[in-house]
């Protein structure tokens, strides 16, 4: 029977399937971090259970960590305690920890792929909704709550009902200045922050095929922002080339065998999807969000929608969002002064993002009214950037390169956007208070963020590309 990519992977991981029960799904690797794991470890202790497969569990400290002076003890007491608790728990339960100071430390969704832990055809979970990132390799990967973290620790399995399948196709050639981030912000703006709920989404079409692995990770990362259970892209030569030679990727005969299997991982021609959506790459502008959920996005030259264009029952929520953002109906964001630019997060903090930003800002300087933070996704990304001299280029442009962590994406550490200030951010969420209490976030691509930092206001990157 013809199968979707998702079903091929799911079926290969079902331990037990019983009528009326969710499937018991085997998890290849469980990623954990300091914020959503302590209560799960406590649960194991009170049940007197071990972590069933500690070698298939990988830990890092990312959410709470400072992004300067990481060699010093963490100043903030609760953050330090949470990170220390992770260290103690990993030791007690025999789990490898890539903590602060370790050369592999970084944002959990950056290190899994760069270490070759994330592989095509695998199943990956983490107590973090952006686990969908790993789907870029043609894997099933999704975020779970802490009770489920405990469940996976105890059983290496997860009780899970099979979601519906959706295919989102984008075909055609992207305009200059438009990248992976713009594609996914565009899709979410078209189908809303709830448009993918209940579905596993496969991204297909030649536009996605033409993206690098970094770009594909950016797309899959934000699947959760349309509510999708997960997002995935069939592996191809780009995927195989990326994985090859990485620290924990299969080697020798194992590699050859793995590649043969990976080449079977695609949706069969007549596989049935519950929903299919198609978009044209040419229709996508550089995108920016104006509201308080990621579905509230527009092309950077467009105007904020009018309240009356929404159904009456939605108008209250819409007005609340605009009020929070300090915007009004029909306002154009282009030219709007900004205060901060954040380049980082599991969406856009990989080496390709930093290269792109450095190439663009070389010989330019940020505007005086803007503070810029560039936060690499991992220690390895940071080291690579330094080897390539990107830190110098960025530094000269007023874009200091910091140390790895989640940082201002969710402001659990000191990197907070002050109340009322505007930040053009390459992260994934523009929720109220996400970057600090009463902060105001415009989500955009690394190029749009960099161009806006140079000008000091929301900018159409294409202005710089017409030479």
């Amino acid at each position: 029977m013809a199968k979707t990519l998702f079903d091929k992977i799911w079926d290969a991981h079902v331990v037990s399937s019983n009528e009326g029960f969710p499937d018991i799904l085997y998890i290849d690797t469980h990623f954990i971090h300091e914020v959503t794991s302590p209560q799960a470890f406590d649960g194991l202790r009170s049940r007197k259970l071990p972590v069933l497969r500690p070698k298939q569990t990988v830990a890092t400290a990312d959410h709470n960590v400072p992004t300067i002076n990481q060699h010093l003890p963490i100043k903030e007491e609760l953050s330090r305690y949470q990170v220390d608790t992770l260290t103690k728990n990993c030791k007690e339960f025999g789990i490898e920890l890539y903590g602060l100071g370790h050369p592999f430390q970084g944002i959990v969704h950056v290190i899994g792929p760069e270490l070759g832990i994330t592989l095509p055809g695998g199943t990956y979970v983490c107590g973090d909704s952006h686990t969908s990132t790993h789907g870029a390799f043609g894997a099933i990967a999704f975020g779970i709550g802490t009770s489920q973290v405990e469940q996976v620790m105890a059983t290496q399995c997860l009780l899970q009902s099979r979601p519906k399948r959706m295919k989102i196709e984008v075909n055609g050639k992207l305009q200059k200045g438009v990248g992976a981030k713009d594609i996914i912000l565009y899709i979410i703006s078209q189908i809303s922050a709830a448009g993918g709920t209940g579905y596993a989404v496969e991204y297909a079409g030649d536009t996605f095929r033409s993206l690098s692995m970094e770009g594909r990770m950016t797309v899959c990362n934000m699947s959760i922002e349309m509510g999708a259970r997960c997002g995935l892209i069939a592996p191809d030569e780009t995927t195989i080339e990326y994985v090859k030679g990485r620290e924990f990727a299969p080697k020798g005969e194992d590699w050859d065998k793995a590649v043969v299997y990976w080449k079977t991982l695609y949706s069969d021609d007549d596989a049935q999807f519950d929903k299919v959506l198609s978009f044209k790459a040419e229709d996508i502008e550089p995108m920016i969000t104006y509201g308080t959920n990621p579905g509230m996005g527009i092309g950077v030259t467009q105007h904020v929608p009018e309240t009356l264009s929404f159904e009456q029952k939605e108008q209250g929520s819409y007005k609340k969002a605009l009020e929070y953002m300090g915007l009004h109906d029909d306002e154009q964001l282009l030219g709007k002064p900004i205060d901060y630019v954040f380049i980082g997060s599991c969406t856009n903090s990989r080496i390709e993002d930093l290269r792109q930003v450095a190439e663009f800002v070389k010989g330019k300087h940020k505007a005086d009214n803007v503070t810029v933070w560039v936060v690499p996704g991992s220690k390895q990304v940071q080291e690579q950037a330094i080897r390539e001299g990107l830190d110098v280029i960025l530094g000269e442009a007023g874009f200091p390169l910091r140390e790895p962590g989640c940082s201002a994406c969710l402001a659990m550490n000191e990197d907070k956007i002050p109340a009322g200030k505007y930040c053009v951010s390459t992260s994934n969420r523009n929720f109220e208070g996400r970057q600090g209490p009463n902060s105001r976030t415009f989500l955009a691509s690394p190029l749009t963020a960099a161009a806006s930092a140079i000008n000091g206001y929301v900018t159409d990157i294409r202005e710089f590309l017409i030479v």
Partner: protein
Amino acid sequence: MSTKIFKHIQTSVVPLTIENIDTDQIIPARFLKATTREGFGNNLFRDWRFDENDNPKPDFVLNHPVFSGKILVAGKNFGCGSSREHAAWAIADYGFDAVVSSFFADIFKGNALNNGLLPVQVSDEFLKKIFDAVDADPHAVVEIDLVDQFIKIVASGEQETFEVNPYKKACMTNGYDDIDYILSKKELIEEFEVSR
């Protein structure tokens, strides 16, 4: 281990008409630094409930003395965003036993069910009926029956059935636990690992 049992409640409700309430609003990230499950209710809807000096904002429904009850009724796409289970913990810790909305985000729904907090998905029309009922009488009582899977506005008798996964229903009405269930199949997990 057993989880909290839920079968039936009948109580007044707290209405929150806003749509797309994300888990960052339910419990902001800066309050996720605790390493235990307790106490999150104090910071439920923190930035909507309190100003920057920690004074209650009188306009917010949880600060309004007239509204109380064990059911939170909210606009569609409730619980979107972050997978933090702390959101479900905060709602339950505050004292709610059920959340009613016309649409729930997946991860939140799962987290709620794992904590004995029942997510009840109703039609857009029924959600509006509840909001209207509370508008007319802030003390309006709503009944939720998990065993027979219905929700009722008691005064008018208007009711609707709701869906719930039969396995999760059995867990909630009996206090069963996922880990106990999976571990009862441990030999299948080991067989699966050997067979790969």
